């Protein structure tokens, strides 16, 4: 028990920075009218934000504040009692699998939305002015 809600501990502060980077990423991606530009700006911010990850990892060793030094991923093996280490690892794997599942589901949703948009744009009615143009042929839908 640390006996406190919040202190300016190195680990807590570096994770807070990560949280703000994440909020900034969400805001930036949604700030553009054109989704492609938002995605591009967001990926640049993501690349810059990756710098924070090693800082979080090593913050407990570089700055001697409230958080204990590295206890799981350290030379000489974990220093946590198995009664806590085993549930920690099981839960970590569980959250990772949940994250991957939701990530893949979100990507497939995104692809569906893009395909729907492309189909709609390809089949817009021809402009009224000028000669009657042939109806554009929609792109062949990929085999499912």
């Amino acid at each position, binding site marked *: 028990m640390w006996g406190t809600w919040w202190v300016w501990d190195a680990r807590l502060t570096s994770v807070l920075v990560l949280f703000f980077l994440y909020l900034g990423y969400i805001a930036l991606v949604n700030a553009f009218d054109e989704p492609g530009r938002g995605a591009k700006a967001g990926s640049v911010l993501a690349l810059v934000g990756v710098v924070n990850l090693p800082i979080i990892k090593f913050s407990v060793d570089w700055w001697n504040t409230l958080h204990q030094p590295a206890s799981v991923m350290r030379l000489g093996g974990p220093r946590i009692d198995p009664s806590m280490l085993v549930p920690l690892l099981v839960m970590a794997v569980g959250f990772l699998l*949940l994250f991957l599942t939701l990530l893949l*589901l*979100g990507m497939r949703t995104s692809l*569906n939305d893009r395909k*729907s948009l492309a*189909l709609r744009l390809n*089949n817009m009615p021809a402009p009224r002015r000028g000669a009657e143009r042939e109806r554009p*042929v*929609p792109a062949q*839908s990929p085999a499912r």
Partner: protein
Amino acid sequence: MTGDLGNYLAMGGYAAFVWPAYGVAFAVLGGYAWYSWRRYRASSEALEKLQREFRPRR
């Protein structure tokens, strides 16, 4: 509460923190998973409808 089960559920006096934490985690993660699945189904159905509508003529 008495007995092993009661002792376990009491979580050393921290039950009021431990079990709501599980509840919140399950509600948030389960809700998001359910929402994601619904969004995926809706987008698949919309795409299939468009593909039927704009089937290329042979």
